[in-house]
């Protein structure tokens, strides 16, 4: 029971309560850049989920078995950037080789994920403490956190893309057309996601 509660807590937490875009304000560049069309937003969302999952698992292993034992945890940021950049390169090469159509569809966005702070964000959060168990994230938990953070990113991206496709046809004051109205929309979405902030399904152990 506790295990399931833990999974649900991490999932809901990553997707809604601590949504990367709308609560933590990380990864805003692709959020505005790729949210013009629903189809490309889906592709970008999938790519982020994929990269976040791989990045969380690899960085967890490096953190746990290299950085912590040698007492160099302060190198987390630089090492994680290194690992994530290399991983994305690798994924890009593999995609170009084995799935050219997906490679074409993701286009410029795949290399952009390299510098996406949301991916680095999830890796750094995984080095912290799981608020539900009150202990450091296990490998499985950090993987789950990575995937669910990606899902949350994708959710925000899809919501935004859907709204922006509708916005194209609405009567917007001329000075607000394009990016300005997207910023306002994003702000309103962030406000509504604030409603999840108090959500706490299962009280943490001992809390």
């Amino acid at each position, binding site marked *: 029971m506790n295990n399931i509660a833990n999974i649900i807590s991490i999932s809901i937490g990553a997707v809604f309560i601590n949504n990367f875009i709308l609560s933590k304000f990380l990864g805003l560049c692709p959020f505005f850049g790729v949210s013009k069309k629903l189809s490309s937003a889906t592709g970008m969302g999938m790519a982020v989920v994929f990269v976040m999952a791989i990045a969380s698992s690899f960085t967890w292993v*490096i953190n746990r078995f*290299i*950085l912590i034992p*040698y*007492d*160099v945890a302060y*190198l987390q940021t*630089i*090492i994680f950037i*290194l*690992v994530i950049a*290399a991983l994305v*390169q*690798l994924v890009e*090469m*593999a995609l*170009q*080789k084995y799935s*050219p159509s997906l490679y074409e569809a993701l286009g410029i966005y795949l290399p952009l994920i390299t510098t996406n702070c949301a991916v680095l964000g999830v890796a750094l959060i995984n080095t912290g403490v799981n608020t539900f168990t009150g202990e450091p994230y296990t490998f499985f938990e950090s993987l789950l956190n990575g995937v669910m953070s990606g899902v949350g990113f994708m959710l925000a991206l899809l919501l935004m893309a859907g709204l922006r496709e509708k916005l194209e046809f609405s009567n917007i004051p001329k000075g607000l057309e394009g990016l300005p109205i997207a910023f306002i929309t994003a702000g309103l979405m962030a406000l509504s996601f604030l409603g999840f902030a108090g959500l706490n399904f299962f009280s943490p152990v001992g809390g």
Partner: protein
Amino acid sequence: MEILIPLIIVGSIGAFLGLGLGIASKKLFVHVDPRIPMILDVLPNANCGACGYAGCSGFAKAVAEGKAAPNGCIPGGAKCAHAIADLLGVTASAEEPQMAVVHCKGGRKEAAERAIYNGIQDCNAATIIGNGSKICQNGCLGLGTCVRSCPFDAIFINDNGIAEVDPEKCTGCGKCVKSCPRKIISLIPKVHKIFLACSNRDRGAKVKKYCSVGCTACTLCVKATPSGAITMDNNLPVLDYSKEENFITAAYKCPSKCYTDLVKKRSKANIDTNCDGCGLCITVCPVPGAITGEKGKRHVVDKEKCIGCGNCLHICPTHAITLWGTGLQPKQARMA
């Protein structure tokens, strides 16, 4: 010595990742035609779609694969076609550069309106509602649908409320031709500077009532063009630009001034001392009183009246007439 630990860790992780990527780039190597990015470099990269592909990269790929001709890029023109041909090692036949023209000049001053249009400022929207506010059913609405379609910023709505193409900027991509709901924009060869600025097919008496520059189908231009380059089609002259014809006489003869000449100042005829005063030039000159002179004596051209049509050039038996001054000569001068 403490500093060695992070050095070794970061260094070894970096080296490991670099090695991994190096191996991966060999193992996962995908052969990409190196000519594609090279072709893409010489293309205008405006992604206008005039070539029929979804953007410049699509065209570059098709050219590299031999599916498209090197001269397929219309905005790039001959320069681009040659650059691509050089890359591919083939010879390119350059397409004659074209430009768009708007076949209407009946603006606020000339053409009567039958209603006031206050709706969405777009020609398509205006066409849906009662086919626009002008009485003329073929006139330019001047709401700028073509302006917005132009990727090169070459069309503008002039002071008279009529769309006008800047010949300097126009690349002949043809996007405006497709965008116009009235279908009154077409492409003409860039060397030709004269076109019929009217698309109305109504009868003359009717046209006169609502547009002072409308074509009345008087056929004077057809009669003024012995080369047969102008034919009447359903009350509207059709100009055949493939024939050797400069249309200057036709434009001059038009009583409603429907023709637009993009050349502001044409070169004028000049008769030199070789003139033997045969008077043949006076018979072919469309402007009364532009060439004067007594029989047997050297004739003179009135530079104010001469329209530079070049009719007299080749009729002169002593080759005494040449075109002087600004303007385009080689292709414009008629080779009758």
